[in-house]
């Protein structure tokens, strides 16, 4: 005997018991999408989510990041002198930058930091939005244009004492060199008074580059399925910056970019040489102003080529030979 379905009966019922019909003369509004900038991420900063994230960051993400990207950190000692909120403005070459930077920060910053993430990329599906909000405390930032809502979200969080990681380039580098910095970090600093700590991350593109970086002009799927390549990285923190009296966000933004540029020079040479190089020296951050192949050339050989040119690991060769001999 068939069981009666009361919900089905209601669905089939006529108004007012059932749903009303939409008048054909009235435009139906688009369905409310709770994604992108509209995604409600407040839950990700409540205690249970923070606790879970802290456990994950410290016990899973951190060791994983350390394994995949053994890091050298410079300048982190100055973070001890800072009080939250702080804006960390870093160059961006890889998806690895965020977990790497977060797990490099001292615990008192790490567990109270939100990450500005592209609303159109990380928040375009509910499951993605939930995943990044929970795992990295990501907040949606509109990167295609200046957006009041993005700025308000970040400003409110800074005022509540949260630190912010932001990538002022607005996205990962398409060719390995940094792009022009946008004014978001500077604007937020001017608005909230939070200092900006410039950060330079070097080496992550060798581990996980942007998908189409290795094949510019390709379909964008060439790197799909490419395994992570383990490589050392360097994270350099600069001295905190604040907007000078009367300095607007645009000028301050340029100063932040110059500060990251000095950090990039520091990695390429050393701290003292970076300070002594003239400001108009060929860019260590944005790359030489030259045709594409020369820019690619200036990046140095890709990691796999470097490995191929390296001397063979004699110990490993010996072990392999011994094993073969045993088998033989």
């Amino acid at each position, binding site marked *: 005997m068939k069981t009666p379905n009361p919900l089905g009966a209601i669905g089939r019922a006529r108004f007012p018991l059932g749903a009303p019909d939409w008048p054909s003369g009235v435009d139906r509004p688009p369905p409310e999408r709770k994604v992108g900038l509209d995604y409600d991420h407040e839950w990700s900063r409540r205690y249970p989510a923070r606790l879970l994230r802290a456990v994950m960051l410290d016990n899973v993400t951190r060791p994983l990041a350390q394994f995949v990207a053994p890091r050298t950190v410079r300048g982190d*000692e100055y973070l*001890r*002198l800072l009080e939250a909120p702080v804006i960390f403005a870093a160059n961006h070459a890889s998806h690895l930058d965020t977990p790497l930077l977060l797990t490099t920060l001292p615990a008192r910053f790490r567990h109270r930091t939100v990450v500005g993430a592209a609303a159109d990329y990380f928040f375009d599906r509910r499951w993605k939005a939930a995943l990044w909000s929970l795992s990295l405390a990501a907040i949606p930032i509109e990167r295609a244009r200046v957006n009041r809502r993005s700025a308000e979200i970040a400003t409110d969080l800074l005022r509540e004492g949260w630190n912010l990681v932001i990538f002022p380039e607005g996205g990962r580098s398409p060719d390995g060199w940094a792009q022009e910095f946008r004014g978001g970090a500077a604007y937020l600093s001017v608005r909230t008074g939070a200092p900006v700590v410039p950060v330079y991350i070097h080496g992550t593109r060798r581990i996980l580059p942007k998908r189409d970086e290795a094949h510019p002009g390709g379909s964008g799927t060439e790197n799909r399925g490419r395994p992570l390549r383990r490589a050392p990285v360097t994270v350099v923190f600069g001295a905190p910056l604040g907007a000078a009296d009367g300095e607007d966000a645009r000028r301050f933004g340029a100063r932040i970019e110059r500060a990251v540029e000095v950090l990039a020079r520091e990695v390429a040479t*050393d701290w003292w*040489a970076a*300070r002594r190089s003239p400001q108009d020296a060929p860019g260590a951050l944005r790359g030489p102003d030259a045709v594409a192949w020369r820019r690619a050339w200036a990046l140095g050989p890709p990691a796999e080529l470097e490995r191929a040119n390296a001397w063979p690991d004699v110990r490993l060769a010996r072990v392999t030979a011994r094993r073969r001999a045993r088998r033989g």
Partner: protein
Amino acid sequence: MSPRPGFVLEVDGSTPPTLFWDGEGFTLERLPEGSRIIYAPEPLDALKDPVGAIRHALAHPIGDSEPLAALLRPGMRLTICFDDVSLPLPPMERPDVRQMVIEEVLDLAAAAGVDDVVLVAALALHRRMTEAELRHALGDRIYEAFAPHGLLTQHDAEDPENLVHLGRTAEGEDVEINRRAAESDLIVYVNISLVAMDGGHKSVATGLASYRSLRHHHNPHTMRHSRSFMHAPSSELHSSNWRMGRLIKESGVKVFQIETTLNTDTFPSQFAFLQRREWEWTLKDRVTYAATAKALDTVPAKLSRQVFHSIRAPHAMTSVQAGEVEATHELALASVWRQQGVVVEGQSDILTMGLPYICPYNVNSIMNPILVACLGLGYFFNMYRGKPLVRPGGVLIMQHPTRPDFNPAYHPSYIDFYEQVLSETTDPNEMHKLFEESFATDPWYVHLYRTGHAYHGVHPFYMWYWCAHALEHLGRVIVLGGDPGAVRRMGFSPASTMADALEMAKDVVGPSPSLTHLHTPPILMADVQ
């Protein structure tokens, strides 16, 4: 709430037992009623923006000096000298103040187009710093930028090629200092004034000097006439250094002095009870004390030493001043006194103190018996202005295990000093006459000093001379809990309990003695009136 000043507590029936340091450990001792305990002032607030304060100090120098930026020009020779591993104590959390200051100096030098820059660790006759210690003091960035190019050097007081004799003072004191520094267009000296003895002309005149120069003030006569060497106007040690410093200036050597002072935030939060007054210990403090004391009692001394030497102090900068040496030093001294000064009324018959695991000469190393004597009789006894805390002929009771253990890499000459010199004499004058020269010129010690990480051969003598004023002043020195053999070798009396020590002291100072306990670290300076 602003930090509370130091004060003197009179012990009565309600006073809880008092914390005594005991090397790599501590005990609680109940002092007789009527005793006085001197508590250090609480740590002063840190500068809100230390880097900003450094920039301001460099741009607004004190005394007869131009701003640092105006003293820098392309083509000049710039030498940046800095205090060595003996400061601060314990080593501070990163960033070290030397790193913060030197980075700012180098920023200005880079902006001015100065290329010829050399950094010199002002060691005097101390051991050379290890790479890890240099990295800690200067930061990885400075180390990696300068060390690989041979531009980060350590002063070698035995390198005749790299020393220059600038002349003799009116008192006939030879002034011989580091050649690179002396022949530079500008010396920038970055100092940490942890105690009132540090800084001033002593930075260059001692830190960059040779044995030939140092022996004029590091001798029993000078030390006996430095009462105390923590108070420059009454210190022959400082008078001699000041004469030398003025001669250096007259010789045309230009010094831009940067002096920093730190607060007495000495121990990290897990050892917070070490900074608190006992009656304010919370349950957490009491549990931590009990657990730590018990654990330290049971683990081998080597392990507890490792634990303590891994402590990084959360010291914070309380002031930074720069410019002409004497004017800068005056300001720095005022900051030191503001942090450490405690007014004490009158002297007592007995002075007690617990000695910790560290002194300026055993960072990352063992505190051998000679350094125990130096810390108690040299440093802590001399932490006064006016007159000593204990009356002439009084008794000093200091607690420390005083094991006859030595670090052969860092303190090779100390071993021979202990075996050969102290077994013959404990009189500073006599050992000065009979033994000093042979230790100071021993080629093996010179070799170890120059190429390894050894203190100079003469260094143990200097440590003993440091005690000269106290040895002359005191009627008896009792070491509570000390190894009897080592204690007797140094001419002191061992005691196993505080009660025994007090009974022994009464033999010297009579019945019903007055007693003062120096509750330190954190460091304090007694202004005895």
